[in-house]
């Protein structure tokens, strides 16, 4: 589908609270048309979070794939509090980011353990350079952001792989689960290089080689090429997967930190991913021009 102009939450003149009243239809692709990054209520009126996430209900015992992996295949919605807006706890409102909880469980204060100069850089990005926000430019998300990004994803497990097919920007992440070594550190990519292996009932994915051009969220929490992420993905039953990731980057953090959340199976049995074409007709940067200022920078980023 051609992207409808996603109303960008970072438009200073529109309050996040107003956008929270959007009611996206889960998985239909229509949520993007109706308000993109707006929050929503699930059918029935219950508030599940900043966007639709299915409730976790007890499921059946896990099956196995033909090659013996615990079977996680299907459509999943991430439950990570308000991490899509800001990955760390953010008790005070920022332009476009309502106060809320993030997904950090270690350290206990729920905040990224930045070194002082890195904290200053994140604040500068959030308050002065938000037009650099990667999603507004249709950049593919890095790791672990891809695991809790809006709209959820499909997991497919062909022999030897786990694939995450994200509805956002219609992309994939293919993780070999044969424990193969990383590619050369000379090659940096948005998605980095992921290599996985099953340790009992837990899929452990080690990701390096990220290019330092992605953020964890829409709030300036940036990455560098030194980032190293270890994800631990543990399916509990047919309806629930527990997810955690340890993020390490000695160049900007004082210690490694950890996020945790859940994936809930999407209740629609006939679910199909829709095509969220992002580059094709992207209007987000136009919203920055109107709402946030800094036109000189944005002109350079806009296409004719």
């Amino acid at each position, binding site marked *: 589908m051609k992207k409808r102009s996603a109303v960008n939450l970072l438009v200073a003149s529109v309050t996040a609270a107003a956008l929270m009243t959007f009611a996206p239809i889960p998985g239909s692709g229509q949520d993007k048309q109706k308000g993109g990054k707006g929050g929503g209520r699930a059918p029935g009126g219950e508030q599940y979070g900043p966007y639709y996430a299915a409730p976790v209900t007890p499921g059946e015992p896990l099956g196995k794939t033909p090659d013996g992996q615990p079977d996680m295949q299907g459509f999943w919605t991430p439950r990570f509090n308000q991490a899509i807006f800001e990955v760390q706890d953010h008790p005070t409102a920022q332009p476009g980011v309502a106060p809320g909880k993030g997904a950090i469980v270690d350290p206990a204060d729920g905040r990224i353990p930045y070194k002082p100069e890195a904290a200053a850089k994140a604040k500068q990005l959030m308050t002065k350079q938000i037009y650099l926000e990667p999603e507004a430019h249709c950049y593919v998300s890095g790791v672990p952001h891809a695991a809790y990004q809006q709209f959820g994803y499909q997991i497919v*497990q*062909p022999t030897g792989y786990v694939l995450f097919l994200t509805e956002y920007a219609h*992309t994939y992440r*293919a993780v070999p689960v044969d424990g193969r*070594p990383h590619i050369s550190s000379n090659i940096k990519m948005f998605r980095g290089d992921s290599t996985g292996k099953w340790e009992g009932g837990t899929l452990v994915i080690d990701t390096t080689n990220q290019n330092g*051009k992605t953020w964890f969220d829409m709030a300036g929490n940036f990455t560098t090429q030194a980032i190293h992420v270890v994800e631990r993905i543990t399916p509990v039953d047919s309806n629930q997967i527990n997810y955690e990731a340890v993020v390490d980057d000695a160049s900007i953090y004082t210690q490694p930190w950890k996020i945790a959340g859940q994936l809930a199976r999407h209740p629609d049995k006939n679910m199909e991913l829709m*095509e969220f074409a992002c580059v094709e007709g992207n209007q987000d940067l136009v919203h920055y021009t109107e709402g946030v200022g800094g036109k000189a920078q944005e002109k*350079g980023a806009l296409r004719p």
Partner: protein
Amino acid sequence: MRYLLAVILLVPVAAQTKTPDLQGIWQAMNTAHVNLEDHIAVLDMPAGRSVIVDPPNGKIPYTAAAAQKQKENFKNRAKADPLNQCYIPGVPRVMYLPFPIQIVQTPKYVLMASEFAHTLRTIYMNGTQHPDVSLFWIGDSRGHWEGQTLVVDVGNHLPDTWFDRSGNFHSDALHIVERITRTEPDILTYQATLEDPQVFTRPWTIRMLLYRHKEPNFKLLEYECNVYLEDSEKESK
């Protein structure tokens, strides 16, 4: 003897009923991405022979108006080629871009992931039909097995994609039937028949080979086209 005969007769049947395995990382080794038809070289566009096997003259059977439009497209290709704007390539173009494609299979799906801009094709193998209304850059693919061949019906095309860098094009009436067969262990024969009564006077068919990448631990890297485009526009300011 009777037992042996049964084995001889049954073995080929059993071999045929096993779902073919198309999994692996594949890539075309031709210049169809430049031009599906016979073409001589111009700057940055190597020469190549037509991949069109029907009609026999190797040319796309355009209507007169469409042939004119293709000439204009060719002239304006630097700006008009949707791929130069980094848009999703569409089918069949994604299949023969100069980028590797990884194919994976489950009983419900055949997935094709291109290195170009993380483009993904989901081919539904569960007997479902195309959706009623939506048009997609990558179309909508529903497949089934006919013996050793994966047959894919591709509908719901947005009219905004091209077939190659030379401006060969279609409308939203495009309908494609692909036939993909692993004709040798490391070769896929890719065939697609295209019809679009708004643009072509008759259906036509392309055929080419896709070769398996056999380098150890070969994997897709990434080509984030829109990022490089944005960077180059900034540099040229």
